[in-house]
């Protein structure tokens, strides 16, 4: 999660570089597909997510089972689709938690006076000095494993990264020419924050958010690998990836398809995120 911090120096203009429109359309279509999978998974799946059939275990992809079957004979395509809601929920909620905490800390630090900036800086450092995984592990052993705790754990360990980026962005915007100009023109600070600083800070935050969703899912899957992720039998991409790893030499399809969904989701949301921000790019 703290990976996101590296984006602190990414500026709005650069992030907004337009991508091929074709890609944007594809990404849009994929997101629509995800939406259907979240809202009405039964519509596009032939089997239930938990329907076990031990005798049909470890079947490679076929006309009957598009993505093959897992160790309990469950249809992987159906599980991947049914798992979309949980996986995205983990991804989106964890990102939201991380972002809101980050926004709070970052805004206090970036817009407040020097003392606040200092205080937030220290809080951030303390959080940052903690290895993210340890923070996540502690939250999970504390509250027991499950999607909710995994989400909170991942959210918490991303927060300091977001806070740094946002703080940096805000500080950058605050010292930029047009804010100086507004100040010279006698606009009130609250007005400047509302009218100039926040709108300009929103675009990079949107980019961060789109990248963060996929990352949060990947992080949650690392917790599954360590045996502390989603509770069985919930179909969740990260947990599926981790469960399938055991059989990677004998049943590659068990990890490839959930893995593909994570990667495609990250790419699609990022591409869309950039397309959206590029349209807003003129605001500055």
């Amino acid at each position, binding site marked *: 999660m703290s990976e996101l911090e590296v984006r602190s120096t990414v500026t709005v203009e650069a992030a907004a570089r337009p991508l091929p429109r074709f890609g944007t359309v594809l990404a849009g279509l994929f997101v629509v597909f995800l939406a259907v999978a979240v809202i009405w998974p039964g519509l596009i799946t032939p089997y239930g997510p938990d329907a076990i059939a031990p005798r049909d275990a470890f079947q490679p992809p076929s006309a009957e089972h598009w993505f093959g079957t897992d160790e309990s004979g469950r249809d992987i395509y159906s599980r991947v689709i049914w798992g979309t809601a949980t996986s995205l929920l983990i991804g989106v909620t964890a990102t939201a938690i991380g972002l809101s905490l980050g926004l709070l800390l970052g805004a206090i630090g970036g817009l407040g006076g020097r003392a606040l900036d200092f205080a937030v800086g220290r809080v951030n450092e303390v959080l940052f000095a903690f290895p993210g995984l340890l923070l996540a592990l502690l939250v999970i052993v504390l509250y027991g494993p499950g999607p909710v705790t995994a989400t909170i754990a991942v959210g918490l360990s991303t927060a300091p990264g977001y806070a740094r980026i946002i703080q940096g962005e805000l500080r950058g915007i605050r010292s930029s020419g047009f804010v100086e100009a507004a100040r010279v023109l006698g606009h009130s600070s609250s007005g400047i924050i509302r009218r100039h600083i926040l709108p300009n800070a929103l675009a990079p935050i949107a980019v961060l958010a789109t990248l963060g969703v996929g990352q949060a899912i990947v992080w949650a899957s690392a917790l599954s690998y360590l*045996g502390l992720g989603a509770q069985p*039998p919930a179909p969740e991409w990260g947990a599926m990836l981790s469960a399938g790893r055991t*059989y990677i030499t004998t049943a590659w399809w068990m990890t490839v398809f959930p893995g593909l969904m994570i990667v495609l989701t990250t790419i699609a949301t990022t591409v869309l995120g950039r397309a959206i921000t590029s349209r807003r790019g003129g605001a500055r």
Partner: protein
Amino acid sequence: MRSAPASVRMNRRLLTLLAAASGATLLLSGCTAAAPEAASTPTAGGTLVYASGDAEPDCLDPHVGGNYPQALVAGQFLESLVSLDDDGAIIPWLATEWTASDDGLTWDFTLRDDVAFTDGTPLNAEAVKVNVEHLKDPDTQSSTGYLALGKVESVEVVDDTRARFHLSTPDSALLESLAQPWVAIESPAGIARGMDENCLAPIGTGPFVVEEWVQQDHLTLMRNDDYDSAPADAAHEGAPYLEGIEWRFIPDSASRYAALQSGEVDVIDNAQPDTIAQATKNGSLVEIDAPRPGASNRIELNSSRAPFDDVRVREAFIRAADVNDGIDSLFFGTATRSYSVLSSVEPLGYSDEKLFTTDLDAANSLLDDAGWTTRDSDGYRTKDGKRLTLRFPVSTNQSIPAEQSLFEQIQATAKEAGFEVVISPLDISGWYGALFSDSYELVSAPYTKIGPDVLRTLYDSAGITPAPSGYFANLAQLNDPELDELLRSAASTSDTDERASLYEQAQKIILGGFYALPLYDQQNHFLLSTSVKGARAMPTVSTPTFADAWLAE
């Protein structure tokens, strides 16, 4: 096979014996049998690389604590007073003979007079006395060995080679207890160095000597050139062929198997079912299947309170949980379904398949009778507004992925009868926490011990009362005075037939009361490169031994 565990055991052990004798590989019953290789002459030299998937021990002295990972490695450098042969009979090791008094309270052990520890200290009755005292000293922090010697009050040195054990009550399991690696005999001079030093390199009489322990990486074991105290069933006498063993710890099963395939290591333990099937099918690797003694792998049903205080609900769960197809598909034929709470290597194990046939209709009517008549919107049964929920903490350290998947299948089949099974994967400390706070209805806990006396540990009502520490071993919380009486009599009788009959009655009570759902033996599979010859698992607690092993070209 199902109702005759003894024959299963014989079969496996005979094969093992044959294989070992011909210098070929060990085979397992009921699985692909590789063609026996031509006998070859042992060649001396070479270092064998062993990769363990078990946790790295905190202390190499199995007197301290006392868990299976310690037994695995300690078996290479420590030896016990007695051992077991392939038929489960007690055979001489460091002790050549033994006699019990008529009242069963005094046991005289005669020791070999020609054995010395690797530090030069002679093995004598005084050394045995020091070891027993070491195990019984609270400062040693022994748990398994301490329990094994629970009835031993003191050891008297009769003369240099004769040690007399004084017991508080007769103990029919004494020899089985003494065969365990957790009560192996160490050099008194080694023990005298203090725990910190002794933990790093215990000194024994075994075929290898601890040379170096680089924690979290590997252990170097060197050949004991003066070794000459093999158990009575060893393939050869004298020093081992191998120059040494590099003992590594590779926790990730996929990496461990990859390392074996690429030749980086020669032997791995905790081999996963799919890899065993793959490796033995194409003949590139050799398997040793050595189920652990003691209890089978089973799911205990917490009978202390609702819903499992009602035998009908317990039976309903067992009838609803369909495991046979799952064991077939998840274990690739490497595990055989068990219908006994004892391991198939235990001669006194009793099984009853009829009690465990899956029958959803029967489960449903049992639950109806028990008052769980209504179902909520998720399809789970309810009674007085409470859902029929079973909490199932699962230790991710102890349950391999295939077993965790099996639990998921049980969850799915039990759901059809209206049970909500909540599986929580936990790390080892969290798992103990869940058990000790009594927040479980289902639990699968391994227990390795030689002999049927393990039943007393697991099902005597004395095991329900938690120690102030929270520990208790009777996880089914089975509280039946009749059973207690049977188990206690069995533990103190010296009549073998009576002992067998008492244990059979006891197991009928446990199985018939639906307190446990047996799954299979405690799985213990080793995979060996084809160049490793003469390795075998000890018939005691199924740890590997390399005293007779060599590396062929």
